């Protein structure tokens, strides 16, 4: 498959002459502007992923000028080999006056690759620009200190992990080592707009007053995005400082099934909160987050396929119901969105211990 479609990756070049070939590429096209704000490495161990990733990077470079380095690895292959391709993704600038291009280098490796991967990537970075590393799929043993110590932002998608607890513990340990890397979980990005909408509703004094008297929380997610639901819950719990009933020595810790997880908390005011995280195949990625007390319901909901969410507040006669933007379901847009915000993602770091506790 890869052999048939490599035209999409551009010109195949010898690994040792990538830089020279890139220079030639720019010399051929004097009309375009080479732009780069970062190195974006995209790593995948899936078959033929670099073809798909080349398309994704094409979309990302519309908003984020970068040098893209695509890495595909077949670690099960017996022979050790490496092939490289170069191309450029070009777009007209906003004013339409310039063709702005971003370089892409694609590497396909086979066989044992830990050392070769590291050396290959780091030999082709644009110096002084930050390295954003997008790791697709399971966190394999290639992910070692020698690799992550040089990364500035680490993008991953915990929704893709078969054992999220183990991988997240690895991430947590890495962060505990004082690595300056900013973790960017795309599953966390998927809930960003919902969290923003929910937080905005609690600016309302009635909702704010009712928060400590919350009795029920309902979170509905698509089964492929269980982690998004758990992260939203972890964020709520971390923000409010509510205690799990288990930790308070109260009975009733949690109940789990294939379609629902239940958790029990107590607010600072002593209100018992039952949380249901429901997994519904007909739901949007994050279909509902609802906090209910006797006097107030705060709700953010989204229909499948809609670009908007409903942001609702019901407190007696006082009601808010309006549309707000929803997060994209498209991977390239999620990454672009995440890159736009920058920062160290301190909220994710703060939420992570609570999240890990819920996953246990």
């Amino acid at each position, binding site marked *: 498959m890869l052999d048939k479609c490599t035209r999409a990756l551009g010109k195949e070049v010898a690994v040792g002459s990538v830089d020279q070939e890139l220079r030639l590429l720019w010399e051929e096209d004097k009309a375009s502007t080479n*732009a780069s704000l970062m190195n974006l490495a995209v790593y995948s161990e899936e078959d033929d992923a670099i073809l798909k990733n080349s398309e994704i990077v094409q979309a990302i470079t519309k908003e984020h000028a970068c040098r893209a380095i695509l890495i595909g690895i077949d670690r099960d292959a017996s022979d050790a080999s490496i092939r490289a391709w170069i191309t450029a993704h070009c777009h007209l*600038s906003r004013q339409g006056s310039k063709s702005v291009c971003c370089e892409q280098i694609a590497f396909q490796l086979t066989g044992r690759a830990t050392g070769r991967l590291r050396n290959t990537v780091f030999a082709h970075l644009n110096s002084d620009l930050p390295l954003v590393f997008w790791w697709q799929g399971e966190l394999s043993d290639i992910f070692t200190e020698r690799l992550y110590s040089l990364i500035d932002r680490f993008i991953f998608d915990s929704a893709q992990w078969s054992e999220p607890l183990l991988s997240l513990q690895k991430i947590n340990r890495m962060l505990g080592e004082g690595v300056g890397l900013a973790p960017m979980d795309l599953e966390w990005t998927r809930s960003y707009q919902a969290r923003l*909408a929910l937080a905005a509703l*609690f*600016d309302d004094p009635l909702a704010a007053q009712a928060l400590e008297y919350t009795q029920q929380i309902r979170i509905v997610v698509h089964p492929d995005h269980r982690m998004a639901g758990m992260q939203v819950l972890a964020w709520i719990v971390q923000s409010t400082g509510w205690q799990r009933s288990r930790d308070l020595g109260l009975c009733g810790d949690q109940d789990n099934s294939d379609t629902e997880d239940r958790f029990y908390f107590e607010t600072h005011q002593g209100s018992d909160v039952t949380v249901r995280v429901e997994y519904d195949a007909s739901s949007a990625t994050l279909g509902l987050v609802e906090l209910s007390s006797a006097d107030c319901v705060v709700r953010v909901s989204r229909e499948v396929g809609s670009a908007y969410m409903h942001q609702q507040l019901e407190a007696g006669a006082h009601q808010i119901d309006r549309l707000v*933007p929803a997060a994209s379901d498209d991977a390239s847009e999620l990454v672009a969105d995440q890159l736009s915000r920058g920062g160290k993602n301190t909220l994710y770091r*703060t939420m992570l211990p609570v999240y890990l506790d819920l996953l246990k």
Partner: protein
Amino acid sequence: MKNPFRKDLVSRSRPEACTVVIFGATGDLTHRKLVPALYNLQVEGALPAGVRIVGFARRDKSDQEFRTGLEELNKKVSRSGHDDTIWSEFEQTIHYHQSEFQDEEGYQRLAERLDEIDRERGGKGNRLFYIASAPSFFDDVLEHLKKAGLNKNKEGCWARVIVEKPFGTDLPTAQHLNEVVSRTFEEEDTYRIDHYLGKETAQNIMVLRFANAIFEPLWNNNYISHIQITCAENLGMEGGRGGYYDKAGALRDMVQNHLLQLLSLVAMEPPTDLSADGVRDEKVKVLRSMRQWDTPELVAENVVRGQYIAGHVDGEKVVGYREEDRVDPESMTESYVALKVLIDTWRWSEVPFYVRMGKQLPKKATEISVHFKEPPTVLFNALAGGVPGGNVLVIRIQPDEGISLRMVSKIPGASLRLEPVKMDFHYSTSFGKGSPEAYERLLLDCMAGDATLFARRDEVEEAWKFIDHIEHAWHNSEEPPPMAEFVAGTWGPKEADDLLKKSGHKWRRL
């Protein structure tokens, strides 16, 4: 009450829900800038839930007629495009209130309507009054707001006012307006808008200076030869602007506010913090330190005024300023001004800031260029031809926002020849995503109570004090400095070039 979910979620002050009352709601600013800005904020989910908009104007209109007019223009000008679903929800928050600006009863009805909106919303009665009417009505609007009790903060709520430019036409009128405003609203609730400060590149001046350690050590008279601030427009008096412009002129219309604000951002000392007053304290010190051109002789020596005569701009034939629609054929209003500003501080002693603004120039561009001193006359300066020009750091405010640095490099070859080269950063190339409109940022800041990007009373008055001396020399002295002429489509009058030539400088070619 503290909202625990806000912590670390968004890195900006939190805007609060309010009712935005726009005076002069049928005007161009409301239709082209203010409502599209609020709509874009709604599209991005940045507008707080519960924001309502009330348009206050004299014409008789229904809510629906007002909404329809706004929608038509929003479709044309909105930065994020126009989404019918969002608009149909957004327009439900828009209302129209018909009243004369001098009609006391109209304000009483407004107060009742705002109370009704607060009740419907069930939330707090925060009010944001945006005075976008003609300046002649500013006093009326403010006085009547006070009489109707709308200036008072209700319990746990705020009432703020945004005043559009022109903030006065000279120092006495600005002081008078400030008096009226301060009789009506507290200074902390007063937001004098200068949309230049809401521009991404203007905000980036502080970041460039204070988040990069390499510039600040050089940012003084030891290393900087001079600084130029240019605002060039390639338009004349189209769309009936001549009527307003001929009364204002380039100095009042652009220099007093926008360009002196940019100058103060470039010249200020590092603030102690990023609070509104922390930043504005430092900006006002710059304005206060500007050497005053307080005699006609000093004005003649340091300021050039000019008018364009017929010429060609962008290949089109254009008439001279005095032939423009609604301009007095014997007008003595300047369509071009160039001036030298000296800031008498330790940092800027004897470093001239050259500021120029003009209509019907070859292209549209606003930029700040920082010209560094030439290296010592040894080594390369000893070569034939010397070093070709010093380093220049350019901050482009609009339209091609970015930063460039000119430096000198060796031309490849066996001989030692030097040429200037440019390192260039373009916002549009590096960041594909468009910047928000200045009004979006400024409206949100006001809703959040953050006045950093708004002018304070003393800033406005210090700027007028400087400008008034020049205006006085031009219009009230016995021997006023002459009005220079230049052909439309050129870079201004020869006298403006001479202004720099006296100090061995020349205008940067844009």
